[in-house]
């Protein structure tokens, strides 16, 4: 028990983040910005991601607690700190982790001026809401909570491990408007979810007419866990077998899904431009290797009623305990179901409004970054909005950004983000072209980098590409 608790706590702050790529969004110098908005402006002629290195993305966050909150070096007791945090946090606080590794990424501008791009990436995504009532019950027990209804519906968590194959188009429709779309095929390797649970657990002090001192009642419980890709792993022996089985599913061996990304960029006038995108509008259809568990019912436990049956010497009495267990299993049965199910992907919405100023023209005679006649601004200032649809509703973030082209080879973007985690998230991204090699690095919560333990979220993307500009 303690080990599990420690493990969860260690995850806090290292792994909790929510897929927001606020630095990458609109950062047109980096080809991977097309994955955040398929309709963003494309400045290059071709790009190739360096396999396995073109995008390494990691994002983790915990909205209510940081590692430092629990493990700080102090004289007070760690258990007091945990108690304090359990009561401070709400049932809408969450822990999240996302990791993406791009295997392949490429793109080219065809003769018809459509920029095609495609690739393969692997994604792990996890979210667990803080089940506050159950944490209190585990931490303190029920003695001080008579007549309080512990909410079983606070259990809400999902986890996915998948490979994504994608191919997209990006076209400049006219001087003002660029649009893009990307088709995605998901190959789910492992997935679970436990959402939309209901029910309460209450210990009431009985009155004179009650059978016993207390009534322990589970009311209208309906708790389920759906899994896909789990059953066949259960019988495997050892980590190496599990790993090879999971990797075997990466190439359409698992459950298949389909989705789209849509986006646009619209230049309102010379200075202002508006953009938006919707990502992962789609679903995965889990039909293979599916197993779900569901417990539902209502039951009140009063203890064991002894009835002192008249017995002859050596006769066994009633099997009270077995009867009790049977009764509980009858009233709140746990069913194992093999039905297939559809899982919608968490849709992500991005939007940005940008004000550009200062003409970017490094060389005087050759505006090399701007061959298609559009205007590139030296500096951009603007606002971004981000939302991801999670089991308990959308999580949102607002960002102020400043983007600057420093030289022909180097540009940078600074962001200030307000989200569920904090009001003090400053991020910085840089994109450097060294010859044809493009390197980018984007990280947020920089203020916390001097001590990551105090960070409630950390987000990082980095990668290497080969970019071939228009000649």
């Amino acid at each position, binding site marked *: *028990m303690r080990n599990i608790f420690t493990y969860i706590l260690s995850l806090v702050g290292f792994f909790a983040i929510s897929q927001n790529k606020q630095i990458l969004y609109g950062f047109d110098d980096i080809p991977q910005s097309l994955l955040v908005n398929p309709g963003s402006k494309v400045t290059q002629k071709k790009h190739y991601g360096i396999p396995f290195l073109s995008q390494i993305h990691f994002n983790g966050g915990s909205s209510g607690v940081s590692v430092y909150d629990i493990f700080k070096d102090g004289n007070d007791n760690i258990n007091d700190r945990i108690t304090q945090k359990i009561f401070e946090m709400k049932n809408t606080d969450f822990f999240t982790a996302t990791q993406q590794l791009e295997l392949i990424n490429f793109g080219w501008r065809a003769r018809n001026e459509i920029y095609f791009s495609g690739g393969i990436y692997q994604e792990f995504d996890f979210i667990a809401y803080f089940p506050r009532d159950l944490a209190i019950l585990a931490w303190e027990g029920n003695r001080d909570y008579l007549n309080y209804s512990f909410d079983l519906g606070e259990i809400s968590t999902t986890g996915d491990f998948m490979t994504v194959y994608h191919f997209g188009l990006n076209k400049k429709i006219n001087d003002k408007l660029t649009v893009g779309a990307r088709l995605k095929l998901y190959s789910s390797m492992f997935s679970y979810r436990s959402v939309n649970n209901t029910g309460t657990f209450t210990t009431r002090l009985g009155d004179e007419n009650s059978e*016993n*001192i207390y009534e322990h009642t589970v009311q209208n419980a309906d708790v389920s866990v759906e899994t896909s890709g789990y059953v066949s792993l259960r019988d495997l022996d050892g980590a190496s077998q599990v790993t090879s089985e999971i990797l075997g599913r990466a190439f359409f061996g698992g459950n298949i899904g389909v989705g789209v990304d849509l986006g646009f960029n619209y230049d309102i006038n010379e200075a202002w431009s508006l953009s938006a995108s919707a990502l992962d509008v789609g679903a995965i259809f889990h039909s293979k290797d599916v197993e779900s568990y569901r417990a539902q019912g209502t039951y009140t436990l009063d203890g064991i*009623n*002894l009835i*002192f049956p008249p017995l002859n010497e050596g006769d066994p009495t009633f099997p009270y305990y077995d009867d009790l267990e049977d009764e509980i299993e009858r009233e709140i049965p746990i069913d194992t179901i093999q039905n297939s199910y559809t899982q919608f992907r968490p849709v992500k919405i991005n939007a940005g409004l940008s004000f550009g100023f200062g003409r970017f023209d490094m060389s005087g005679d050759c505006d090399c970054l701007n061959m298609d006649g559009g205007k590139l601004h030296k500096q951009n200032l603007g606002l971004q909005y981000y939302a991801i649809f999670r089991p308990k509703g959308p999580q949102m973030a607002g960002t102020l950004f400043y983007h600057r082209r420093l*030289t022909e080879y180097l540009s940078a973007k600074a962001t200030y983000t307000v989200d569920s985690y904090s009001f003090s998230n400053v991020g910085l991204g840089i994109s450097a072209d060294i010859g044809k090699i493009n390197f980018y690095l984007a990280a947020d919560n920089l203020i916390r980098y001097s001590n990551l333990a105090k960070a409630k979220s950390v987000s990082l993307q980095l990668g290497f590409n080969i970019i071939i500009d228009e000649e």
Partner: protein
Amino acid sequence: MNKTLYQSIFLVCVCLFFTACIKDTDFDQTEDIALTPVVELDLIYFNLRASDFFDSINSTPILTVSDTTEIRFLDDSTLQESLKRAEFYFKFTNSIPRNFQVDFQFLSETNDTTYVAGTFVSEGLPAAPVITEYIQNVEGDDILSLTQANKVVVSVTIPSSNENLEGTLNLKSKTTYFLEY
């Protein structure tokens, strides 16, 4: 000049990123984390009538009645390790005009007695039931004995009885488990 400046900024950013650290924390405190829930749980209950203490067919008093139930979670290894204290609370409501001796004998799976407890219950009247409360606190070495058991034998003894005896003896009980993980 500008290029040097920008390259410096670039380097600083990269350094900042790779020198990110975690400090002022002490993960050895993990050892000190202790969950200490206090769990309240019903135990057994019964309603014995005065007539249960008299065999009307043979016209003989039955001075002791007893019954047994398993409490299978008691000798579970997790509970054996984590139970620090147990407090039993028994509440008798007696409307039979007799005293009672009630004994609780905890037995292991092999039927060896591991722990015993018992109390005296005051006599009452059919019109005026009398409540007797009894608290048995178990801690220290006794916890070890208690958690070797997985069943309890409850014996109720009446000093004398006859066919005209009236009233009921009711028991409600619960246990408070003080746990530490």
